[in-house]
């Protein structure tokens, strides 16, 4: 009989940091000491703390081993599994207290988290349907099909206050009600897994770690609106997520949890995967459905909304992965449980992909209303290297930058909009004092220019012009009149673009203009980049008093821009300097000034 489980994270993050080699090594070591019949290796989805991968948790002790290397596996097996002695030196340091081990759920990263959408990520093996069922999987579907009428499901969802987690925050129950009431023989249920925000990866993690939750929720949606066919639209660049979803669909069909006459209720539902080619615009609902239909992924004007006229012109419900992941839990635990979390207008939790200049890069799920400070400092472990927090970017290319002064604003849909950003799909990029806000705005604009589908003029040409203006400013050619031009252009793009891609594209510019105008001014008036990022505005000079004339910089300069003799202060020729930063890295005396 099995007495111990080794949970090995096999999410994309840990695959990248080498968990397959760990898996092979640990398996070999277990065989070597003959523990195969006592210890089980479980390949799970993402635990969230990707910065510490590859991650391994051994139960029943709950020991959290971080950044495991193949050569550590022998020690873990010999000591922990065979002799029962936990290998302290390999544990995540926060779990090692003075006299005893701290429970993982009490460490800074996990303490304030509340995992609903990520409930089983890192807990089950996503490639075995029995594991999902063992944690009450498909019970919500069973309850819905045997005890509830479709209207009751919709009512329950409306009461729960669940709002779409894909970005806009539209009430999910209402969306389902529109689709249920819309007239049509054929209806569809779709899942938006076309996660495109740079830095956001919660949908991928849910599909990788708990794919059956999505299948269960989509089947519930189909029952509620009267659909019998569904599609998951997922990008082809998520190969692990696609594979696990395929396995999950196959197993659900074998168990009769997908297909005809589920639980002998007379209701049937079929689900297929459609792969996207990775265009950002295909995350927009009308473009996504156009793409499923087999056409080029371009948006169309709304109304009519998909609930009335969606996929193949039929009433369609389209929800995001994270939204679906909440639904079985709401049905099983009730609306009171769900509404007890969150703020007045935003109930439940939200998953954030924490990235950038923060110690604990990873995936976190917190109740709505948690402050940015709690997420960045307590859960994220703060900004590394003793640097100062400058701003957080939420909502990706559609969102904005939140400065330190709004650090204590409770985050929900309304609050984020009020301070000039948006929830978006939940990317949260932390920036320290070395980040240039004009450069950040330019980075996101570069992304939208690239991803604009080109169907409407304001987005196609407007974002390009906006990018050119920012480029002009960061290269030192900005003029005061550019402020007016930026402002006008932003508002025209917002008011006249066809879809959300264009309508939100100027947000990074507007929010940085609002909170960091002094940085724009420094670029335009003083021709200076305060953070030292924009190359064209940088000047490298040698501080004569500090330079001892060691010739190291001179030897390393790739363009021979530095001249001088031994024990004589060197000089940089500004004409030849390409601002590659090599001299700064090589100088041991901090004698090179960059400003």
């Amino acid at each position, binding site marked *: 009989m*099995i007495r111990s*489980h080794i949970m090995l994270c096999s999410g994309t993050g840990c695959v990248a940091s080498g968990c397959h080699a760990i898996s092979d090594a640990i398996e070999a070591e277990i065989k070597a000491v003959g523990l195969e019949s006592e210890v089980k290796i479980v390949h799970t989805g993402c635990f969230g703390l990707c910065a510490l991968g590859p991650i391994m948790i051994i139960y*029943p002790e709950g020991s959290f081993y971080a950044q495991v290397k193949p050569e550590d596996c022998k020690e873990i097996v010999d000591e922990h599994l*065979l002799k029962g002695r936990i290998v302290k030196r390999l544990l995540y340091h926060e779990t090692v207290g003075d006299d005893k081990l701290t429970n993982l759920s009490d460490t800074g990263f996990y303490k304030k988290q509340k995992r609903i959408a990520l409930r089983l990520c890192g807990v089950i093996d996503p490639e075995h349907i*029995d*594991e999902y*069922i*063992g*944690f009450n999987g498909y019970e919500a579907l069973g309850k819905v099909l045997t005890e509830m009428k479709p209207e009751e499901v919709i009512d329950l969802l409306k009461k729960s206050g669940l709002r779409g987690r894909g970005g806009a925050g539209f009430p999910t129950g209402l969306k389902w009600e529109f689709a249920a009431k819309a007239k049509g023989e054929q209806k569809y249920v779709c899942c938006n897994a076309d996660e495109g925000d740079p830095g956001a990866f919660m949908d991928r993690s849910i599909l990788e770690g708990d794919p059956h939750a999505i299948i269960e929720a989509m089947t519930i949606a189909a029952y509620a609106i009267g659909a019998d066919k569904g599609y998951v639209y997922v990008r082809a660049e998520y190969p692990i997520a696609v594979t696990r979803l395929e396995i999950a669909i196959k197993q659900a069909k074998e168990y009769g949890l997908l297909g005809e006459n589920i*639980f002998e209720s007379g209701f049937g539902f079929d689900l297929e995967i459609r792969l996207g080619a990775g265009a950002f615009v295909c995350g927009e609902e009308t473009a996504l459905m156009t793409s499923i239909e087999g056409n080029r992924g371009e948006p169309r004007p709304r109304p009519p909304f998909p609930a009335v006229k969606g996929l193949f012109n039929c009433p369609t419900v389209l929800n995001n992965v994270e939204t679906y992941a909440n639904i079985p839990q709401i049905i099983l635990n009730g609306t009171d449980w769900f509404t007890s979390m969150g703020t007045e207008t935003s109930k439940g939790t939200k998953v954030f992909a924490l990235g950038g200049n923060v110690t604990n890069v990873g995936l976190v799920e917190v109740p709505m209303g948690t402050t940015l400070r709690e997420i960045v400092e307590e859960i994220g472990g703060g900004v590394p290297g003793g640097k100062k927090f400058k701003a957080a970017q939420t909502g990706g290319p559609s969102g904005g930058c939140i400065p330190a002064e709004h650090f204590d604003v409770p985050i929900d849909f309304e609050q984020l909009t009020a301070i000039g950003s948006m929830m978006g799909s939940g990317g949260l990029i932390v920036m320290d004092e070395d980040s240039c806000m004009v450069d950040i705005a330019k980075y996101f604009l570069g992304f939208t220019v690239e991803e604009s589908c080109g169907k409407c003029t304001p987005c196609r040409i407007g974002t390009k012009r906006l990018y050119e203006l920012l480029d002009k400013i960061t290269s030192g050619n900005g003029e005061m009149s550019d402020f007016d031009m930026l402002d006008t252009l932003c508002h025209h793009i917002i008011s006249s673009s066809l879809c959300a891609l264009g309508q939100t594209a100027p947000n990074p510019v507007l929010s940085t203009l609002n909170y960091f105008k002094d940085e724009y001014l420094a670029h335009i008036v003083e021709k200076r980049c305060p953070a030292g990022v924009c190359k064209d505005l940088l000047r490298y000079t040698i501080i004569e008093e500090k330079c001892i004339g060691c010739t190291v910089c001179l030897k390393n300069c790739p363009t021979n821009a530095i001249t001088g003799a031994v024990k004589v202060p060197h000089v940089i020729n500004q004409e030849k300097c390409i601002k590659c930063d090599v001299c700064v890295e090589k100088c041991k005396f901090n004698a090179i000034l960059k400003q």
Partner: protein
Amino acid sequence: MKSLAELAAIRDKMKQNATIREDGESTIRIVVGMATCGIAAGARPVLNAITAELAAQNVTNATVAQTGCIGRCTLEPIVDVIVPGEDIVTYVHVTPDKISKIISSHVKEGIPVVEYTVGAYEN
């Protein structure tokens, strides 16, 4: 799968998994001394007997863990049964044939097998 009962049957079968991975407050812990002294005295067959017996008797609310040397090497194999909220009960000179009774009486019914405990040995 046709009915909710079939779903429940799979779920219950998988609950053993769930017990190991949850730090449930009602979970009983069975801890076997597995240092050199314990292993030399025969702790390995004892451990195997415990896991086999838990499965045979359908116990889903207990986990098995190992520990190091407690210092009383002459009393090995030593097994602690820790029921939440109660004092730890320590069994000494445990052999595989004693396991069935410990599981059925102590783990399942809550009645320690007094004659196998360290207290009985010392008397």
